[in-house]
């Protein structure tokens, strides 16, 4: 399968994003932080795999806001049951984008188990997500972004990205900062 550069993909998303809440995890969070200057970025997920659950809480609490999670395949494997929880609730304002690179990139780029065969999109469909997309080229991604920002369906995207292209140092102290979380809350209240 083809794949795209994650940084390029996230830059395109940032270009079109307005006041949506974005919940990036791990490497996507580090990259996203280098691109976005918004105070509506929620990076305070703490433990691996928990991003999708934080995003569900945000989606439930603010049904008027679009919530976009930039998950990872290694992360989602740690909290695979959250797909069933989310599918059961069916929040129409949640877009679940999983950056698939077949590795635990933060932990030394070791491959995830059974990475050649696993289909997250099929699992998400079975779990109850309403719209499923598989994207592996940058032009399709660019064309899809406006749809993601406006859809009223619980959406799952398998976004295939190059493995091991991380050039940035993780800064978990900043990503999980309580002070910045409080800033996020103050910003969210105003929007």
């Amino acid at each position, binding site marked *: 399968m083809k794949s795209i550069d994650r940084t390029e993909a996230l830059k395109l998303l940032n270009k079109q994003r307005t006041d949506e809440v974005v919940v990036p995890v791990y490497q996507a969070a580090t990259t996203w932080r280098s691109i976005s200057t918004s105070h509506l970025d929620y990076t*305070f997920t703490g433990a691996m795999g928990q991003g999708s659950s934080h995003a569900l809480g945000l989606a439930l609490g603010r049904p008027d806001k679009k919530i976009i999670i930039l998950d990872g395949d290694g992360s989602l494997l740690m909290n695979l049951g959250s797909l069933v*929880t989310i599918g059961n609730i069916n929040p129409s304002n949640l877009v679940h984008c999983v950056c698939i690179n077949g590795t635990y990139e933060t932990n030394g780029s070791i491959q995830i188990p059974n990475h050649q065969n696993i289909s997250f999109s099929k699992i998400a469909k079975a779990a109850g997500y309403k719209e499923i997309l598989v994207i592996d080229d940058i032009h399709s991604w660019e064309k899809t972004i406006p749809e993601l920002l406006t859809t009223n369906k619980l959406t799952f995207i398998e976004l295939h990205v190059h493995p091991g292209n991380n050039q940035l140092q993780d800064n978990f102290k900043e990503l999980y900062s309580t002070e910045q979380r409080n800033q996020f*809350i103050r910003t*969210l209240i105003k929007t």
Partner: protein
Amino acid sequence: MSNLTGRTIIEALEYAGIEYVLSVPDITTSENVLKPLMEVSPIKVIQVCKEDEGISIAAGLYATNKKSVVLIQHTGLLDSINCLRAVSMEIQNPTVLLVGLLRHEPGIQPKDSSRYGIQIITPILDSMNVPYSYIEKNGDEQKISKIIENCYKKCKPHVILIGGEPT
């Protein structure tokens, strides 16, 4: 000693402004807390597949100014220690956990239980500096709304250990 009642636990949650209960079924509280919550209470129940999901959903809800509690069994608390460490303690989220002690002997403090899984609960919470309370008998429910209020005021977790099956 008369038992806790599910009705007064639910009333305490409603009084404290709880809008969501995030739960994996717990045998101690299923019949008289979780089922009435799902059937008659205005509080919304979100069934999660694993207990740590509840802690994280609660954090997301808190960021939107919504109050919730996590209703689980002590086995699920043990499974969620890393999430409690990171999401509740390090990032400082007001996580309120109602934790049923599976097959706990009445009148015995958890640390004195003959069951290993229950004995270790409060030492683990002590080592993590996570505050906890123990409720077992009728009237103890009155502590719940104050605990929730303090939790949200201080942005800290609190574990409420439920030692007996509410009637």
